[in-house]
């Protein structure tokens, strides 16, 4: 985590594999968690339509 010198209350987060992110130092309780599985299934958030169940067996 790197404090943002341009503004109190903002920080940068360096990640292993996800580049760098800029956001509020105190967080946002309304934020949608979409990183840690199983929340990665975005249809749970209502943002996308869930895929239809397939009857074909996958290879």
């Amino acid at each position, binding site marked *: 985590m790197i404090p943002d010198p*341009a503004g109190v209350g903002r920080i940068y987060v360096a990640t292993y594999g996800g580049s760098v*992110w*800029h956001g509020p130092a105190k967080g*946002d309780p309304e*934020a949608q968690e979409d990183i840690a599985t199983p929340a990665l299934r975005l249809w749970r958030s209502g943002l996308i339509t869930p895929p239809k169940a397939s009857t074909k067996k996958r290879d």
Partner: protein
Amino acid sequence: MGSNPLSLGVAPSDPGIAYAADYGRTMRTTDGGKTWHAVYSRHHRNGGWTSTGLDVTTVYGVHWDPFDAKRMFITYTDIGLFRSEDGGASWLSSTSGVPRRWWNTTYWVEFDPAVRGRMWAVMSRNHDLPRPIMWRTQQPSTYEGGVCVNDDGGLTWRQSSDGMPQTAATHILMDPRSSPEARVLYVAAFGRGGYKSSDGGRNWALFNNGIEGKEPFAWRLTQDDRETLYLVVARRSDNGNFGDSSDGALYRSTDGANNWERLPLPEGVNGPNGLTVDPRDRNRLYLAAWGRRTATGARDGGVFLSTEGGRNWRNVLARDQHVYDVTVYTRGDSPTLYAGGFKVPPGGRRTAASPGSEFGDTTSSWAIA
């Protein structure tokens, strides 16, 4: 397209729309493949580039030029060093003059706060350290990289590694008390130990007196306000072993890296990743560690606090077993600790309202920088 595409997806509703990905890019066509355009970045009106959020590479740090608040650097794996001249609105590759085989990764940069434009960088062909997969297939003794110096704010680099063999240099630290005419610099060299320069990086000498092992995985350096140096040596093993020569270690030097003393790690810990000295109390140390693999899950990782300069430790965060680093944030209303790592549970990051207290959960919203 540049390199071999790895995957291709065609829109089921329109066969003219397709996406293709290779080792570094995501491209889109809307005309059945006649033309392709990048969707992972956009050209900015300032002349640089900005991400669209599809970045999938590792960042070691974000760094600001002490003489120009709008000049920023990101130390990346895979795409090397990037520079912004407009406060992060757009970015350009900043590896001009760097040996071609060192372009892949810049692990860290250090600025001279007394000389406008002067900075040093540690760069390597070997990326993604300190993850064990990187030495499963290549001996650390064959790693390539070293130090580069720059006098024009990051535009043009030149190699500055005399006395240092090719190595994966993963960290550089400047002693701020040294003279601007003869800066004292320290470098962590993964698989070799540490190197010191007393002439601004022109010449380097190995410092391993007291550091154990044939190939010390020297990873990170820290200095407190009384010139005490700490060196974090990464763990070699990844199979849960403990108590052997593959353990990571923590060292301290009080004489400018001439001699090193091995400090005790917390009980059971052998995977140190980062050490942070509390800026308000030099005896207050935070150690970030990775847990050891066991049949029932990882253990002996997390964040550990010492209030006696590393003589004793207690665990202050155990729920996350793979912590990469700790930052003490002293701005704002109250000091806050941030711990970052892998496999964190829903909530993303952990914070603490005061040093040493148990970490609490928060969720947060983020925009890619």
